C-alpha cells in the first residue's frame, strides 16, 4: 500500500528555513525485480535489528549468576515481557508465546524510539528520509498480519477445525460480525501503530519548523512516552487475540477460576 503523496505546499515554500523538512510519502525507492520497495525503511529496520541482535549477544555472552550491566537490563526486559504475556494468555499456555510477543514488543519499541532518539536527519538520502520504520504503513501492516497468522495458528493448533465453531458459537446470526472482526483486527492494529508514530513525527516536525529550539522538547518527550505505550499496546493486543483464539466460549470461566 504505497502512499504516493505530494507535500503540502506551504512546507515546500522557501519562506520557511528548511531546518526540518517533512517528507511524508517521499520514498527512497529500490527496484528489486519488478518490485519497488521503500529503501529507507529497510535501512532503518536493519539498524534496529542489528541493535537488538548486538544487545542480545552482549547480554548472553558472559552469563553470570548475579547479573549486571547488559545482562541485567535484558533480564528486566525478559521479566517484563513474560509478565505481559502471562497476564494476557494465562498461566497455562503463555510459555510458547513469550518469544513471539517479546519479539514484537522489542522490535516495535526499538523502532519507535529509534525514530525519536537517533538523529537520522544527519544522514542524507537521495530521496525520502530515514525515520522510525514503523511510520511506514507497510511495516505495521506486515507486523499486524503476523499477529493474524499467529492467532489463527494458535487456534488451529489447539482445536483443529473446531476452531471455526467460535464463529457460530453463541448464535449464527453474529457470523458476519465474527468474520468481519478477523479483518478489523489487523486493520486497527496496523493503523493504530502507524498513525501514532506518524503523528508523533509530524507534530515534532511541524513544531521544529515553527520554533526550532527548546519548544519541541516537551512534545518529543511526550512522543517517547506514547511510542513506548504503543509498543506495549501492540504486544498486549497480540497477546489478547491469541488468548481469544486459544479459548472457546464454553471453557472461559473454568479457565479463569483454575
Amino acid at each position, binding site marked *: 500500500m504505497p502512499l504516493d503523496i505530494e507535500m503540502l505546499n506551504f512546507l515546500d515554500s522557501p519562506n520557511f528555513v528548511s531546518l526540518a523538512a517533512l517528507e511524508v*510519502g517521499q520514498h527512497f525507492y529500490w527496484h528489486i525485480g519488478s518490485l519497488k520497495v521503500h529503501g529507507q525503511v529497510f535501512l532503518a529496520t536493519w539498524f534496529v535489528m542489528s541493535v537488538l541482535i548486538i544487545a542480545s549477544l552482549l547480554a548472553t555472552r558472559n552469563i553470570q549468576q548475579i547479573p549486571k550491566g547488559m545482562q541485567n537490563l535484558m533480564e528486566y526486559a525478559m521479566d517484563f515481557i513474560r509478565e505481559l504475556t502471562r497476564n494476557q494468555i494465562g498461566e497455562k499456555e503463555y510459555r510458547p508465546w513469550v518469544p513471539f510477543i517479546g519479539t514484537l514488543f522489542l522490535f516495535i519499541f526499538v523502532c519507535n524510539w529509534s525514530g525519536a532518539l537517533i538523529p537520522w536527519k544527519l544522514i542524507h538520502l537521495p530521496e525520502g528520509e530515514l525515520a522510525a520504520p514503523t511510520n511506514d504503513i507497510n511495516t505495521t501492516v506486515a507486523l499486524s498480519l503476523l499477529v493474524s497468522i499467529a492467532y489463527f495458528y494458535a487456534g488451529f493448533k489447539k482445536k483443529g477445525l473446531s476452531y471455526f465453531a467460535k464463529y457460530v458459537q453463541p448464535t449464527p446470526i453474529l457470523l458476519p460480525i465474527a468474520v468481519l472482526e478477523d479483518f478489523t483486527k489487523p486493520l486497527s492494529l496496523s493503523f*493504530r501503530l502507524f498513525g501514532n508514530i506518524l503523528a508523533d513525527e509530524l507534530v515534532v516536525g511541524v513544531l521544529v519548523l515553527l520554533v526550532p529550539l527548546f519548544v519541541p522538547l516537551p512534545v518529543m518527550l511526550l512522543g517517547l512516552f506514547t511510542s513506548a505505550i504503543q509498543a506495549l499496546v501492540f504486544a498486549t493486543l497480540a497477546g489478547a487475540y491469541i488468548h481469544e483464539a486459544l479459548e472457546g466460549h464454553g471453557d472461559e470461566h473454568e479457565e479463569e477460576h483454575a
Partner: protein
Amino acid sequence: MDVSSASVIAAALAIGLASLGPGIGQGNASASAVEGIARQPEAEGKIRGTLLLTLAFMESLTIYGLVIALVLLFANPFVK
C-alpha cells in the same frame, strides 16, 4: 467547491470530530481512575497502568481520524 478544497475541509472535520468522542471517554476514564485511587491509594500502580492502556486505546480512535485526514491531505485518491 473543487475536490481539493473539499478535502482540506473534510480533513479538518475528520480530526476535529474524531477527537470529540475519545475526549469525553478519556475524561470519564481518568475521572474514574482518580476516584479509584482516592478510594484505594495502595492500588495506584495497577490503576495507573490500566488507565494508560485504556487511554491509548481511546487515543487510537482519534488516530484513525488523523490517518483519514493525512490520506486526504497527502494521498488523496480523488485529486488527479
